[in-house]
């Protein structure tokens, strides 16, 4: 998994976003053990405290859980993963429609355009 940050926004928020996508795209598969805080921090080249904070946030979302002595694991709750994917998809779709609107295409025109594009 490759991480990429800008310095404009809190690093832990960017970590949460990228780890979440890592789970949605099965870089970290359902039920898998995830690397230790330290190893993940090294991988992302960030401070372990920042990584800890990001993982705590994902744990709050229940996307990961801690097994007392074994470490942290990706949730086995497929419904939850799908729900989170759905939320993200909604967000991305809205962004897309709004950027199409800026170049003068309303939602229906955009949908037609997309369908044409796929056919080609």
């Amino acid at each position, binding site marked *: 998994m490759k991480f990429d940050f800008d310095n404009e926004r809190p690093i832990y928020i960017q970590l949460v976003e990228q780890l979440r996508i890592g789970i949605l795209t099965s870089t970290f598969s359902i039920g898998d053990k995830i690397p230790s805080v330290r190893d993940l921090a090294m991988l992302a080249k960030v401070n372990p405290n*920042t990584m800890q904070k990001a993982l705590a946030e994902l744990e709050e979302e229940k996307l990961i859980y801690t097994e007392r002595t074994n470490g942290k694991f990706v949730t086995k709750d497929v419904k939850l993963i799908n729900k989170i994917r759905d939320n993200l998809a909604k967000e991305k779709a809205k962004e897309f429609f709004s950027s199409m609107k800026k170049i003068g295409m309303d939602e229906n025109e955009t949908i037609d355009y997309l369908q044409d594009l796929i056919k080609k």
Partner: protein
Amino acid sequence: MELLECIHLSKEFDNKKVLKDINIKIPRGKIVGLLGKNGMGKTTIIKLINDLLTPTSGEVLINGKRPSVESKKIISYLPERTYLDKGMTVKETFKFFEEFYDNFDSKKAYELLKKLDLDKDMKLTKMSKGMQEKVQLILVMSRKADLYILDEPLGGVDPATRDYILDTILSNFNEGASVIISTHLIADIERILDEVIFIDKGKIVLTGSADDVRKREKTSIDEVFRRMFKC
């Protein structure tokens, strides 16, 4: 008890106040950026912590005690200018540190050196500035210390060296220890910082968690700094 505390710390040179009422608390397990332009007092604070200067008023406490021979054992300090004899080879500097500090782990130093593809029999004078910086960082980070203080560790190094330095800092500080990095090159380093301390004209003008500052100001630490200290 805090690992490091500066309480109402002030320093004058020839009646010129260079530090005014500095208050800092640093717990264990943090990487702290001491950020300010050149000549604003960063190195003076660091020298006071290292017992190389005496405060005019106020005090420095390390694990609750004034700086002493004991505190020097638990602080690993990378000064802005080297005190090493550059006629020494890398191997000789390792030997020197081993004799000088009980907590120097030469095995670890050689491991770090191996990654660098650097000849241990090479004299420091024969090396580029970047190489010398790396060797010094290896020396400092190979001590098992409670507090690492790095004064301008990125001065004049290329981006690849900078990445090596940041990686080495990240992978070698343990949970019980803290790191203070003084620098004016903020963009290069802000990603690894927990806390930031802005210092200007001998005073602390901003402190806080790096991510909190980003969240509040909606921009990078570097940008906040530039706006604050516009020339």
